[in-house]
């Protein structure tokens, strides 16, 4: 299935894109998606301390990605 993924902060610089449409297997978890990212985007390797969001809410590594989900890749935040 195709999902939209958004890259912010240093993730945007490392991936080279703010937004990518990626084709991923059905029912993939965020953890599996993270591995897939590191394979497809060589810059995105050390993402252990990154967070992920699905549809503007934080999700854990065991979250199963659904059709039409918008997945955001969030490096450690530094607002304030």
């Amino acid at each position: 299935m195709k999902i939209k993924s958004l890259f912010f902060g240093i993730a945007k610089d490392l991936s080279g894109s703010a937004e990518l449409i990626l084709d991923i297997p059905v029912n993939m978890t965020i953890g599996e998606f993270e591995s897939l990212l590191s394979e497809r985007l060589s810059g995105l390797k050390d993402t252990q301390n990154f967070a992920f969001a699905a549809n503007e809410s934080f999700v854990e590594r065991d979250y199963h990605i659904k059709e039409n989900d918008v997945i955001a890749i969030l490096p450690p935040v530094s607002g304030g």
Partner: protein
Amino acid sequence: MKPIIMEKTISVILTEQTLNLQECFDFVKDPGCGGVAIFIGTVRNNTQKKEVKFLDFSAYEAMAVKEMQKIAQQAHVKYTIKKIAIHHAKGLLQIGDIPVIIAVSSPHRKDAFEACQFAIDSLKETVPIWKKEHFFDGEVWVNAHP
């Protein structure tokens, strides 16, 4: 029958405009409250001894606003407060500019202080906003490599 008036108790803003201290105070101040606690972040002129030229704040905007609203709601649940304003800037900021203002009113000043601290601590942990420091010889994403 009296009309039911829902008073707005939360003000959340993410903006490219200059943040306004008086506006935050005016929003939270309340004739039933004895005190207002405010935290104002300011851009420092150096990090780890390097002189900062300017900062660039970017955000996952829709989610950042949602997360700031969540923090404001949690502050209302955890503490006895009347109103809370969480205003954050985005875009380019110079030394001395204000990236964030948090203002909280409460009948009890202890709650105002604690809710204000809770809100800034939470914001710095969870709200998807990123700061890039620009130096005279380069730039770096803050917190990217802890």
